[in-house]
């Protein structure tokens, strides 16, 4: 086992354990803190995948913005979730069965399609190949985002979506005026 593999296993174990805390902890505030830990683990996986820009974006957008939004929402609605109230609905067993089945299906497909004999045939699946352009990938991404033959239309649509979400969030969260 190489050092890289050990780092990967530690980071992903931390990510998955904190994700489990997110969905099982009764205390929503602790769940939100575990969510931040989980996001941090995912950022670590991005670093292992040579996507440093996305690790930074993960820190800024998920840990910096979305987690804070979630914590604000929890605090604004807090007193409702007292300790006595159940935090899972009546179908949680069915939910557990469904998600375990989905995970089993994914595992089966992953092993069938990418593991075992397939991975032996294609060395690129065993370890990421040397890619000299990897350091310039962010420059390529930036160029592709404004390239008419690339992603300029989805890019513009994304900016309109963000504007719409901004205005929509303000309008929806506004207290109703008494007439």
């Amino acid at each position, binding site marked *: 086992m190489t050092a890289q593999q050990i780092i990967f296993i530690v980071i992903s174990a931390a990510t998955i354990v904190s*994700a489990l805390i997110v969905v099982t902890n009764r205390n929503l505030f602790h769940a939100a803190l575990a969510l931040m830990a989980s996001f941090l683990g995912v950022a670590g996986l991005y670093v292992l995948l040579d996507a440093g820009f996305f690790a930074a974006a993960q820190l800024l957008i998920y840990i910096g913005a*979305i987690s804070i939004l979630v914590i604000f929402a929890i605090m604004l609605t807090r007193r409702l979730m007292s300790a006595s109230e159940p935090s899972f609905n009546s179908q949680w067993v069915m939910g557990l069965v469904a998600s375990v089945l989905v*995970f089993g299906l994914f*595992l089966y497909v992953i092993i069938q399609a990418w593991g075992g004999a397939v991975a032996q045939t294609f060395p690129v699946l065993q370890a990421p190949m040397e890619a000299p352009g990897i350091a310039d990938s962010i420059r*390529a991404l930036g160029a592709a985002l404004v390239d008419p033959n690339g992603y300029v239309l989805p890019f513009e649509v994304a900016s309109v979506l*963000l504007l719409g*979400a*901004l205005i929509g969030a303000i309008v929806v969260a506004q207290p109703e005026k008494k007439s």
Partner: protein
Amino acid sequence: MSGIPLTWYLIVAAALFAIGLYGVLARRNAVAILMAVELMLNAVNINLIAFWRYLTPDRPIGLAWALFVFTVAAAEAAVGLALVISIYRQRDSVIAEEMDILKY
């Protein structure tokens, strides 16, 4: 053999997605459901970036998709939490089962 096989990333992402799915299905609090949705979006992003790194490192397809997932996740969190707060103001509750005005 050294380095990390692609399947490891896919399995971690699948586990994260399944955990998020369980949270969406089983939680009662709407904010907790939104948190689980964020976990699922993160799992998708891991897959996109892992496939980009292993299969097309010379073309930024996976990166562009991951960037759009980031954007959509941010928009979803903002609007979703605004909705939760609005519903809390009107009905004094953030329990998903009690948001049933549209049913009657």
